[in-house]
């Protein structure tokens, strides 16, 4: 949790967001049937689907006002305004780390999971996420994050422009191969960057082993053990299936 002074500043900001959000819910609630007929059912206020959202939005507005008043009384609002004026440019190390986690999670879930082989997605995510935090060096984190971001932007570009479709038609599993190449490139780049530091080279080795071992265990458990169809079953999972059915 934040320190008290920062907390009161955050209370001010959050109370404003909460009030706006509650008003939005309230506005949306008024579009719900309260007295009209819906699906052949004549509504009265007490069976209306709007009843609970109405209570919730009213409660949130009251609590939002209480929080706003408290933040003003405790100096949070004043502090917030003063803080805006003297705000310096730049991001703190902790926030860089936060952005790195967000980058990893967002690209993993929104970009890669629906479109690329699930096994490779996990390797790509783990390799980046473990390396940058396990190395624990701010400059390396930024450097490697740019590389990772670049790789994901390349994939994003392919998906947005729909170039991935002719690629997949011309070369089966073409996008999977591309991600595999990106993974290898990331590994080689990291190896190059840390080659002088034996401690980091050892950590990279551990990371690679973990990044490959985890999906190697998880994917068969879910795919063949629990019979869960995985989000995107591409080249690697296809090979796993072939091995599995050859062994049966």
């Amino acid at each position, binding site marked *: *949790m*934040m320190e008290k002074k920062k*907390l009161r500043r*955050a209370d001010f900001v*959050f109370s404003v967001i*909460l009030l706006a959000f509650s008003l939005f*819910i309230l506005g*949306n609630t008024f579009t*719900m*049937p309260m007295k009209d007929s*819906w*699906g052949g*059912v004549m*509504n009265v206020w*007490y*069976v*209306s*689907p709007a*009843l*609970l*959202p109405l209570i*919730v939005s009213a*409660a*949130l507005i009251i*609590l*939002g006002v*209480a*929080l706003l008043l*408290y933040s003003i009384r405790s100096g949070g609002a004043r502090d917030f305004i003063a803080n805006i004026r003297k705000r310096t440019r730049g991001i703190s190390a*902790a926030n860089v*780390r*936060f952005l*790195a*986690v*967000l980058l*990893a*999670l*967002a690209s*993993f*879930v*929104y970009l890669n*999971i*629906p479109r690329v082989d699930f096994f490779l997605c*996990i390797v790509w*995510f*783990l390799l980046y*996420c*473990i390396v940058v*935090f*396990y190395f*624990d060096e701010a400059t390396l984190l930024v450097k490697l994050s740019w590389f990772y971001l670049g790789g994901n932007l390349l994939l994003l570009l392919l998906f947005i422009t729909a170039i991935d479709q002719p690629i997949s038609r011309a070369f089966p599993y073409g996008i999977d191969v591309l991600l595999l190449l990106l993974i290898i490139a990331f590994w080689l780049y990291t190896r190059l960057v840390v080659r002088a530091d034996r401690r980091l080279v050892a950590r990279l080795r*551990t*990371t690679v082993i*973990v990044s490959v071992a*985890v999906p190697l265990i*998880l994917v068969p458990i879910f795919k063949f*053990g*629990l019979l*869960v169809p995985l*989000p995107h079953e591409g080249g690697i999972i296809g090979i796993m299936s072939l091995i599995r059915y050859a062994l049966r």
Partner: protein
Amino acid sequence: MLVLERLGHFFSLVFTLGSDPLNLVTLFAAMLMGIIFGAMPGLTATLGVALLTTLTYGMETGRAMIALLAIYVGAVYGGSYASILINIPGTAAAAATAMDGYPLAVQGRAGKALGLTTTTSAIGTFVGMLFVVSMSPLISALALQFTSFEFFLLAFFGILISGTLTSPDLVYKGWIAGFLGIFLSTVGRDGLQFYPRFTFGLSDLDGGLDVIPVLIGAFGIPQVIQVLKDKVVVGEAKKFHRILPEIRDIVHNIPAIIRSALIGVGIGAVPGIGEDIAAWVSYGTAKNSSKHPQTFGKGELQGVIASETANNACIGGAMIPLLNLGVPGSPPAAMMLGALMIHGVTPGPMINFDHPGFILQITAILLLASFAMWITGMLLAKQVIKVLRIPPPVFMPIVAVLCIIGSYSLGTRVFNLYLMIPIGVVAYFLTEMGYPIAPLVIGVILGPMADQNLRRALMVSKGSFLPIFTRPVALILFLLILIMMISQFGFYKKLIGRIKDRIARSRGRTRQSD
């Protein structure tokens, strides 16, 4: 005669469950996994139950319950390892244990402390189990008298009390979290008229938000972000030769153990309040009632006993409202509720009719779990603490993968993942700003219960709220809610202050006249 018959049935159930080798393997494997989860800073009992849920949905219900309860019991106990050996609580429930556990380890008595926590945790779980078996028929019978008004007020009471007691900053921050949870529960087509609420034309939202991805998002993702962002550094664990369960210490502290277990069960039975609060309240009570409170915080065995007995006894306490009312007593119990529903068991007053013997089965599993925990703790403690050497930056990304694959596999919907990440990020910010997450989750779970019962109740009463004042249980719940809310206002605090002043003054006058 009936008691003896029930007892006989109970022990035959314990024997049946315990004699199946596959059940035993599941029990010990999940227990070990739970202890490891609890011991690793950053991983919690809730997350453990959440992630294991995805692996159990192919199992038959009984075995799945063995796995889930074992990981729950194990994780609550496992938190004490990190508290005692590295002074970082493995789980929030073990934070109070670190107060005296680590000083004991520094004094070279880590083995003794772990021996005590292992034994008292097992006793705590056992006492919790006794309450599940004895209180459930009473609460179930009472709950059968409930009408929709009572259920609506109960859901509301659960959300508000959870917000009141778990908020680390302002009380109404807990309420805000609770109401946000209720809001999330209203997304999707409503249960009575099928009207789409807050779906914004997205067909994926028509079915509402799946509970498990919301729970995993709210508990797992903030944990991952926090540990990686804040660079949690795990220190060198203190050495110990072997765990020493000293019977003399246990016998000497029996009154303290019973008191702590009762506190744990009592707090566990209150909706939405977790093991962490049980442990702190028990620790505080032990300190206040001790003849030598100055020794607390410096390696006092009673401190360790108090927190560890209470947090494990809380598990049984949390199962009582969960099974009989459908209201989870703690965040891991909320997760258990999701798991139960996946396995086709709907907890609530009808559980004894829909699934006869299920509560007794849960009780039998709790008994087996307390034994398994003691045995695993005694035999494998030295091996388990090796996991403390794994650096958090290595295991937290793996936890993130487990959260993602877990959320996805329950409904095989990628959309669940799209929702899980923003919920996790918002939950992270809320936690940072002093908002408790438990009421939010309780709100998501109890929201539909509040919604449908309120409307159903008003439908029967034709829009009248009068039944709240004519039905005793409804009136009690209503008054409790009212008092809980009013007690946060300044005028109420002033009024209470004045009354206390007057009482003190009149007492002073009486003494003077004497």
